[in-house]
């Protein structure tokens, strides 16, 4: 399959998903919104762990920071929630600089623990912010989300309630974020820097000796994924409408599930997170009535895949079939071509 075919399929899928708020129920829109947000987080985490070798267990820090920055922009700054989302991304990226400064001194498992500790410090720190409700958190002012730029137009256009229009807006933004993240990841990985990053992942010492600066590339990915994760955090908490330190900095919701999604889907592959999030959502729907059994099944599936298909479902698929519709590689030029 040529790249143009992949791109066409991608556009058709995105366009199809964009129609959900027009045709589907509000519950479905809300469900899929969460799925899309998890996918954004998964794409970001996959870039970090799968391509830059930065196995962070603290990405919930940037979800929380993004969420809190958005709340601060709306409640304290009186800004539009959408501006707040952007501010959330920027603040997360700015704060990722000092985090990187400390965490990059650590390697492997120590890096994972270090990022986790940072995220917990952030959770406790934001719990001290009295203007945003301290430890118990706070809600978005009534109507803030409904008065969001564009929400009125959506309401008129689709003839739906203001609340449904807000859901549709956040859904489309999440979808746009997924599309942008996927395209940006693909372009980045196929670029000179992406090639260097893959070399660093394979062998940092050899990479340095051919002129690749591992620290610079890793820092760049860390900063950019903090931005993506922060934006996603802002968006999630517009939809939820309420924030508290425990919800915003939840290891389980924003990192553990995300790691599960990437690992079962295929770490270090671009389609991996998409496959992973589909499996995750499918299982959630299938086992919704069984309570905690759901988590047990999820855990067992994760273990099985780590044991028997180390590169996840997508990795196993490529290995079996040799068919890779989204190659990140650079084919050698044919002689005479």
């Amino acid at each position, binding site marked *: 399959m040529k790249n143009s075919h992949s791109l066409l399929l991608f556009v058709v899928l995105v366009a199809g998903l964009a129609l959900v708020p027009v045709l589907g129920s509000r519950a479905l829109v809300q469900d899929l919104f969460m799925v899309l947000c998890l996918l954004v987080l998964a794409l970001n985490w996959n870039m970090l762990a799968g391509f830059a070798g930065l196995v962070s267990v603290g990405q919930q820090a940037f979800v929380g920071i993004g969420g809190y920055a958005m709340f601060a922009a709306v409640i304290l700054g009186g800004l539009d929630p959408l501006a707040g989302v952007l501010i959330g991304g920027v603040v997360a990226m700015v704060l990722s600089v000092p985090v990187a400064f400390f965490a990059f001194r650590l390697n492997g498992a120590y890096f994972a623990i270090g990022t986790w500790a940072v995220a917990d410090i952030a959770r406790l720190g934001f719990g001290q912010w009295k203007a945003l409700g301290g430890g118990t958190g706070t809600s978005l002012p009534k109507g803030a989300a409904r008065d969001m730029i564009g929400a009125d137009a959506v309401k008129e256009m689709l003839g739906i309630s203001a609340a449904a229009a807000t859901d549709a807006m956040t859904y489309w933004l999440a979808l746009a974020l997924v599309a942008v993240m996927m395209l940006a990841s693909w372009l980045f990985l196929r670029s*000179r820097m992406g090639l260097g990053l893959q*070399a660093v992942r394979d*062998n940092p010492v*050899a990479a*340095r000796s051919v*002129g690749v600066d591992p620290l610079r590339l890793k820092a760049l990915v860390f900063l950019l994924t903090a931005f993506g994760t922060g934006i996603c955090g802002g968006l999630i908490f517009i939809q939820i409408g309420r924030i508290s330190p425990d919800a915003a900095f939840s290891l389980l919701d924003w990192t553990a599930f995300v790691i599960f999604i990437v690992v079962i889907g295929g770490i270090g592959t671009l389609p991996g997170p998409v496959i992973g999030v589909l499996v995750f959502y499918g299982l959630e729907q299938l086992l919704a009535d069984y309570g905690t059994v759901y988590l047990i099944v999820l855990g067992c599936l994760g273990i099985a895949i780590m044991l028997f298909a180390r590169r996840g479902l997508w990795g196993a698929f490529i290995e079996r079939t040799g068919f890779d519709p989204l190659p990140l*590689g650079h084919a*050698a*030029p044919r*002689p005479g071509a």
Partner: protein
Amino acid sequence: MAILSLQGVSKSFGALKVTDDVSFSLEPGEALGIIGPNGAGKSTLFNLITGNLRPDAGLVRLDGRDVTGETPMQRCASGIGRSFQIPQPFDHLSVYENLLVAARFGGAMTAAEAPAACMDVLARTGLAHLADRKAGGLPLLNRKRLELARAMATKPRVILLDEIAGGLTDAECGELVATIRAIHSEGTAIIWIEHVLHALTSVVTRLMVLNFGKMLMIGAPEEVMAAREVREIYLGLDA
């Protein structure tokens, strides 16, 4: 002016002095061989030249410029290429991509010029037919060729070869030597650590002997090989 020079370079790992006051200089286009018993500090000397290690004392100069504080990336960009004793391919990248990384980063080539340059190097090192194969699965000879090819792709002015002929058959070794000689004849300076003496002496014009981190001798290959102390230490002959 010397392209590369070391002046009083020393390095210790704990109490062990692995490089002890080494000084020499390399002229542009020269080929220097380094021999010495295992543990003499040969690979450490390479790591000091490439910047993978910082010396405890002494200076490393490139074109007369002090580069002692520079990173391996900077020194690669300034023209030092190296191959590792144990091949270090980028396993999940193809053979061609292994070179492409080197050409785009160390060789500072544009996206337009890199592909042809890489294919040229692959052809010269006998790897062209393996261009799209993953580097992780290559057998030893091709891994050694890839080490050489990847170093060449950075467009080095000095290329450091670390036991690149080790573990190869005579025929394989001969092929590699021919490639190295071709690189040398184009004006690239070479420093070559090797135990396979006949391969080494067929290329180099000067030979250095290292023992316990110290430079024991440096000079014309036949002179060095004839010296009694070299025969004693390196070849293990009784006095």
